């Protein structure tokens, strides 16, 4: 029993980050599910994190309210962002949204009120591992409803062939914007939770590298299923911890090893398992079947 408590306390932050990374991965997935590569989510997470923090610390708002508003604000920002930006296609959209994320980060670095680059410290720890996981479960629930509904079909159609979907009468612009807004809300929620878990929030936690991580979680897990990104996030958050234990035996420093494995896993997935880890059971079944018939 004590062992369980000890393990929990030690790995508390890992458990929390599985949930947080899951939320962030899902936030990128929302737009991926309709075929758009929008990478501004580090910016949305930053807005959510800072908004929630300022509300708790400066305005003394109850935590629940701060979290809610912290998720709402980036969602609102997503609207004027999404309207012009979805006119851009493919890789250009990715670049434009990356630009947005960077502008948010640089804005925060230059904003004296929030201590610029140093960020805000000593944030009360109001978020617990349990709360993070509840939020993740909630997000998964919402996405599963969307998947199974008329919306899900529309998103799938847009992803497969956007011009065709439009001719079928689907309001592609509206769906894409809705997904961006949803993603922004999820990212903002994750940001608010993270700030109230790690005691501190700073602009350098919302860099381009962060959104690349989110994308990697989603792709490795599998952007075909709504739970894929969460699985990818869990896998890639646990991996460094496992490697940390293993690396002394391999004689490689944990830092490079973690990066190397991350890169190789991503490469293996994109080359051989493009539907992500969630397709592993199906792929395995196929291998067995083909081997049997050979």
């Amino acid at each position: 029993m004590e062992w369980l408590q000890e393990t929990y306390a030690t790995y508390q932050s890992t458990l929390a980050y599985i949930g947080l990374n899951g939320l962030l991965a899902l936030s990128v997935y929302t737009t991926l599910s309709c075929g758009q590569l929008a990478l501004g989510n580090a910016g949305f997470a930053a807005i959510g994190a800072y908004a929630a923090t300022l509300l708790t610390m400066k305005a003394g708002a109850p935590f629940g309210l701060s979290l809610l508003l912290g998720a709402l604000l980036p969602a609102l920002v997503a609207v004027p962002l999404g309207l012009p930006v979805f006119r851009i296609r493919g890789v250009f959209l990715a670049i434009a949204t990356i630009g947005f994320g960077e502008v948010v980060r640089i804005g925060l670095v230059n904003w004296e009120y929030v201590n610029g680059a140093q960020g805000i410290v000593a944030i009360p720890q109001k978020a617990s591992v349990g709360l993070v996981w509840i939020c993740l479960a909630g997000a998964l629930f919402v996405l599963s409803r969307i998947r199974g509904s008329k919306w899900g079909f529309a998103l799938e159609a847009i992803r497969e062939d956007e011009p065709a979907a439009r001719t079928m009468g689907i309001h592609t612009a509206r769906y894409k914007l809705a997904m961006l807004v949803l993603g922004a809300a999820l990212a903002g929620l994750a940001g608010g939770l993270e700030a109230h878990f790690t005691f501190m929030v700073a602009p350098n936690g919302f860099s381009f590298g962060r959104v690349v991580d989110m994308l990697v979680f989603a792709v490795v897990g599998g952007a075909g299923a709504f739970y894929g990104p969460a699985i990818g996030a869990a896998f890639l958050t646990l991996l460094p911890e496992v490697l940390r234990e293993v690396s002394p035996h391999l004689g490689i420093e944990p830092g490079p090893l973690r990066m190397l494995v991350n890169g190789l896993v991503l490469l293996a997935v994109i080359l051989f398992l493009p539907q992500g880890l969630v397709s592993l059971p199906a792929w395995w079944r196929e291998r067995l079947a083909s081997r049997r018939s050979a």
Partner: protein
Amino acid sequence: MRIARWASLLVAVALLPGLARAETVVKIGAALSMTGPAAAYGAQQKAGILAAVEQINKSGTLKGVKLEAVVEDDGSTKEQGIAVFQRFINKDKVAAIIGPTLSNTAYATNPLAQAAGVPVVAVSNTAPKGITDIGEWIWRVSLTEAQVIPGALKAAQQKLGFKSAGVLYGNDDAFTQGGYAVMKSALEAMGVKTVGTQTFAKPDRDYNAQLTQLLAQKPDILVVSALVENASGIVAQARQLGYQGPILGGNGFNSPKLIENAGKAAEGVLVGTAWNKVSGEKGNQDYLALMKAKGHEPDQFCTQAYVGVEVIAEAIRLSGKGTREGVKAGFLKLKGLVTPLGKFSFQQNRDGDHAPAVQVVKDGKFQIMQ
């Protein structure tokens, strides 16, 4: 009868090693930046900690207690720092934690230790605020910028007599910003005119634009608050732009890496330091001899980390207990400990207290300025 006496003697002799082996192991966790922008400091800190632990165990000052250092990489980031701290507190069950390397990381990790009642000894956090004020379990060996820079500036003023200064500082790090604040007020207090202030960020490598802007105002001295990676580039580029005047830096300059990377450009650079390398005091001389025997060239970070271990060992000795409470109780009593940094005591606010010094880079080495 005689057989019985011999037998009991034999038994006693056989038991002796067992008795000697009955000592407690006290673990000290070291959260150090082995990767990231602070890696240069972390490597030195690791060397200092391991040397101190070895030395203290060998000398036997702590009867029946063996120190063990557990070193982990905090990656110069708060996420990794938090994970490392949690492992130290819950899994390794350390009696005390040394580190983390950067003040920036400490802001996120120290509240954890404070809440869990684990003593933290900061050996390289020099941001004036936000470290020891976190709570009663957070203690500091490293002198803050506020304790070192004003003295360094005054000494430089006496020697060089400058009237105007150009200031350059990193605006994305708690340490460099804290350092800047101290430099600004010290210059004001001295009546020196600041003719220009420019900033940069840690990942930057090109400082030509900022330096050109500052040098156009013809300052008598350049005052820089930067970590060593940036510092080397700044110094090199300032010289390249033709600036021959003095440059004074904060704690981040205190690394041999500065001279290694800036080369001849580093000649004449002034740095306030917590460690008087050429001090003839016994604490320092013994330490230098020890490190020389190991073939390791120590810098300020190595020394401060070394003292961090010494301070914990002394606390254990004073309180007689190798537990978390014992270490804290020992800190409260600690006064005038002989260390390579001089006679060390904790202040009322748990910050460190000993005499700082001023260095100048001469002939490719840090020399104490006379």
